[in-house]
């Protein structure tokens, strides 16, 4: 039994449309007879059959378009010596993958004389921007080349552990860095401490109302009101937002509130919420959430770590009522908030139960006196009593 298949009728042909059969079932055919008409991209072509015999069955009807090689009819050989059945479909080998990728591998760079630094142009430009010495960066690119990522990682590492060398794991390095900063702060900064109790009824009510109107993703935490209150209060006592550097007070025009964020598994960073005084509560919340997420993912930008102008720490959720923190140099003030608790409260001569929080200030006596600190805390309290002004 021989098969008559859709023939390859040209270099570009991948399929053909059967226009008509020139024979009927049962007709005898010999080699070279025209058996059908097929339509290709170029024209209608008369197609010859290559094996003699009798047409047994048509497998495809006129009008059908089929790929080249598709069986179209069965031809029963009459008694003639069984011709070798049509040569089996020869499939070339699956094209073996070329030995090496076509792209030419990078030429190894032979060091000449003083070891020439192997760094990509873009990485060299970024290192200059960050004020990093390329020679201090280890390259992980091909052939040890220093890449953009290597420079970003070096910049990140710089802020977390400024002078630390050789500390094996990240945790130990961070602990060492915090220790250095806190020790220096205590050594150099004459801290004075103030605290006050702030009644939170209106703020908490405002937050509850606000969250009813917001979707889950935009929901606010009360901490964001505390941050905004601190940022706005600084306008009345701006010296608390300044910087102490080589013996002088340098005022900061911008208010970047550093937020103390504990990292899972230990360690602490206090990245800045830039321009906290100018942002709406919703914007502040969005930036705050993003900052926490990136702090924990270890992908903070260097500017966020290096330029808060004041820091706020809130340990209320760990159950502490009052926090007397250590100032982060070169800042000159630190605000702490404890846990919100229900306390007896006198209102118009009545004793009632009200939610309150203890707000504390650690301040650098070289820059401000208790009097200014007190005004600052009072301003925070006043802001929290008018939450819709935040």
């Amino acid at each position: 039994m021989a098969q008559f298949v859709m023939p390859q009728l040209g270099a570009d042909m991948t399929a053909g449309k059967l226009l008509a059969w020139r024979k009927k079932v049962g007709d005898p055919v010999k080699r070279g007879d025209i058996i059908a008409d097929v339509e290709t991209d170029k024209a209608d072509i008369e197609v010859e059959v290559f094996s003699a015999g009798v047409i047994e069955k048509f497998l495809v009807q006129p009008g059908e378009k089929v790929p080249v090689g598709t069986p179209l009819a069965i031809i029963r050989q009459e008694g003639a010596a069984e011709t070798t059945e049509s040569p089996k479909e020869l499939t070339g080998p699956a094209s073996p993958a070329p030995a090496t990728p076509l792209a030419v591998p990078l030429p190894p760079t032979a060091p000449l004389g003083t070891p020439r630094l192997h760094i990509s142009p873009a990485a060299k430009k970024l290192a200059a921007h960050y004020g990093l010495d390329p020679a201090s960066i280890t390259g992980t690119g091909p052939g040890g080349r220093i890449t953009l990522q290597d420079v970003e990682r070096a910049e990140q590492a710089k802020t977390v552990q400024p002078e630390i060398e050789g500390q094996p794991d990240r945790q130990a390095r961070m602990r060492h860095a915090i220790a250095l900063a806190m020790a220096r702060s205590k050594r150099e900064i004459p801290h004075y401490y103030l605290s006050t109790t702030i009644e939170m009824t209106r703020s908490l009510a405002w937050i509850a109302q606000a969250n009813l109107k917001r979707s889950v993703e935009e929901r606010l935490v009360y901490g964001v009101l505390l941050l905004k209150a601190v940022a706005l209060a600084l306008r009345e006592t701006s010296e608390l937002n300044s910087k102490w550097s080589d013996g002088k007070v340098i005022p900061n025009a911008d208010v970047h509130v550093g937020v103390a964020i504990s990292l899972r598994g230990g360690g602490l960073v206090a990245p800045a919420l830039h321009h906290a005084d100018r942002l709406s509560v919703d914007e502040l919340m969005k930036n705050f959430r993003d900052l926490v997420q990136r702090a924990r993912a270890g992908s903070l930008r260097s500017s966020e770590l290096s330029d808060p102008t004041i820091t706020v720490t809130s340990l209320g959720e760990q159950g502490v009522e009052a926090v007397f923190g250590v100032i982060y140099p070169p800042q000159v003030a630190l605000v702490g908030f404890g846990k919100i608790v229900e306390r007896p409260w006198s209102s118009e001569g009545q004793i009632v139960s009200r939610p309150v929080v203890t707000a504390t200030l650690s301040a650098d006596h070289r820059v401000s006196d208790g009097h200014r600190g007190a005004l600052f805390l009072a301003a925070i309290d006043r802001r929290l009593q008018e939450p819709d002004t935040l």
Partner: protein
Amino acid sequence: MTKEKIREIVLRALGQIAPEADLAQFKPNLRIRDQVDLDSMDMLNFIIALHKELKVEIPEADYPKLLTLDDCTEYLASRQELLAK
């Protein structure tokens, strides 16, 4: 959606917030915040994760109903929309 499936989702949400927590030893009847260190931001992200996974609104007023793993599972199972799924 079965309770077993909900419990599994809650645990997975917790795992995302506190990767270092040992979920296998988690006590379903003890307060969650006693077994793993979560601040208000973590709580918010936990609620958001549940909201995204189960498409259910969780008002702040209901936070007290989510103190333990069992509470969470019961509360979420009882939400009507959930049953309509």
